[in-house]
């Protein structure tokens, strides 16, 4: 019973992954759809372009210029689908259970005698896309250029730090001048601090319009406990 449950969960995981791929970042067949909308003359040019060079083709791919017959980089979803469905055999319940262990990247049964080396599908996919000729090369800088980049980066960080510091000092100055004003009101007004006490009274603030409890930080998601139906305004019975 337990093993069967594990099997189901593992297959569900697989499904989720493929579903994610299907909604993936690169939509399937973008090139073909765009191509269909184009007039015939453009088609002709693209076909001649295709025969030019793979470098042009990759440039076209980067700048999203539609090329029907060009070697479009295969979409992630299709490659994922193929690789993931290329299972030699359905794993037994024990293997499935072991594979669903949260921190293992290889299956424990891989060490068994008689079976070939089991390569993780994810590694296959990463390697496929990393070494695909249309994958853009990694960003490399020459030494001087890297130093220039570093200089600019440092200057930007310094500038940000200076701005932050200025802002902090400004806030501090404002706070202190406010505090000084309050102190002056308390001691220098000559009414024994009555005016100060009255002005510091918080009565009626945030109770006349809407309660302060309603004010909360703007968040992306609703609160975890949802709506509190039992809440009453503090003054009410």
């Amino acid at each position, binding site marked *: 019973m337990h093993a069967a449950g594990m099997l189901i969960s593992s297959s569900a995981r697989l499904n989720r992954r493929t579903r994610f791929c299907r909604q993936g970042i690169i939509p399937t067949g973008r090139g073909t759809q765009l191509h269909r909308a184009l007039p015939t003359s453009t088609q002709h040019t693209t076909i001649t372009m295709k025969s030019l060079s793979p470098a042009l083709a990759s440039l076209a791919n980067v700048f999203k210029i539609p090329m029907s017959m060009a070697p479009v980089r295969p979409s992630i979803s299709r490659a994922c689908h193929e690789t993931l469905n290329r299972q030699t055999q359905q794993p037994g319940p024990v293997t499935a259970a072991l594979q669903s262990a949260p921190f293992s990247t290889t299956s424990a049964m891989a060490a068994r005698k008689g079976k070939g080396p089991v390569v993780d599908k994810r590694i296959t996919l990463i390697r496929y896309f990393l070494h695909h000729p249309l994958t853009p090369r990694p960003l490399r800088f020459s030494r001087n250029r890297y130093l220039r980049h570093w200089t*600019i980066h440092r*200057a930007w960080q310094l500038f940000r730090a200076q701005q932050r510091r200025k802002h902090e000092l400004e806030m501090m100055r404002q706070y202190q001048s406010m505090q000084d004003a309050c102190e002056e009101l308390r001691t220098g007004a000559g009414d024994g601090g009555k005016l100060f006490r009255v002005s510091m009274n918080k009565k009626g603030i945030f109770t006349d319009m809407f309660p302060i409890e309603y004010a909360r930080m703007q968040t992306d998601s609703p609160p975890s406990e949802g709506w509190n139906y039992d809440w009453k305004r503090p003054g009410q019975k």
Partner: protein
Amino acid sequence: MAHCELASKPLLQCLRKTYSRGVAGVQLQTRAFQSTASVREAEAETPSQPFHKAPDPSLVTSPRLERRLLRQGTAPIGSRRRRAALQDSENIPFEQLPYQCFQEARKILLADREEKLKEIETMRQRLARQEALSVEEAGGAKAKKSRVTAMQLHLERLKVLADINDPLVKRKFEDNQGDMSKPIYRFLADRKWREYRRKILVQRITQMKVIPDVLPHCDPVVETKLHFGKRQVQAGEFVEAKLSTSAPKLDLQMFEGGQKLVTIAVVDPDVPNVEKDNFDYKTHFLAVNVPISATSTKVDLAQLLEDSQVVFPWLPPVAQMGSPYHRLSLFIMEQKDSQPLDFAAVKAKETSRDTTLLRTLQSRYHLKAIGAHLFRTQWDDTTLEVMKEIGFDGANVELRRKRVEPLPYKRRNPSSFR
């Protein structure tokens, strides 16, 4: 004309136009960032010979000249395309390269540096004023001392901060051309050392238990490198007995300014003692009053002065056959207030290599461990030769582990099984 020259021609032409317009006026006013000389100045000399006679490895492009250079033993520098581009370009110093964002960034950094220099100046004045105060005025010796120390620390920090954003400083440091008498390069070197090599060292001396065995505690602040002959020995490496017959050379890199007097000791905590069934200590080397500083780093243990520094000269380490490996731990100990120890007194007091414990020395002379290193030695093919050379008694002895009779319940086949 080679391929690459053709290819780089239009690029060069357009670059040359930009340079001739923009840079000439900038030359003088943008020098200010660095007080040290510009990188490219050395190349300004005019060649007396024609180029094909003495080709420059950083400029040569034709394959024939390249081959000739290679035959002479100097490889051309960079790619051929790069060399071709360099041939026709003016040597614009890095800080004057006409990139707008870069120049704007440099303006910000320069302004910040000016500010830091001003801060350093005011801090120096404040420090001088504080030091000139008498103890009563400053409110006690302790308060004065703490204030002065804090100010000095802040001053050092400011000195580093003034230069840390300079790309030329970074480049020089990466090329290992940094001047260690300047605080910024010491800071960078220290940071680099602490990132990896110090961690390795600390791991080795703690995992091999040198730390509790020889000394109770050590926080290395001096980078130590050990060479036997030309070979550098990593911390904890096994060294052949033959190699370690002569005293090693040390490279002690300090990361603080000023000079220090240190005591250097090499201790072996693994000398087997058969009678006691235990291990003894042996001091293989001891020298006092060795001056080190951030710029003079080399210490040759064989070259130290016999009459004022070396208490015990180098004794080649050997491990008897069958004994477990010996850890030869080297400690750099700072003498208190960098005051020289009285050599004659030390020499008179420490007479035997076997009874001198490093812990005792540490407490007796108020030493503080600031650096450590470690190598190991074990029985190998050359040990016997070395033993004969130094007159080691017990060269023909092989040590064996005593057979320990297993406890009855741990025996493989006790009588109760039958």
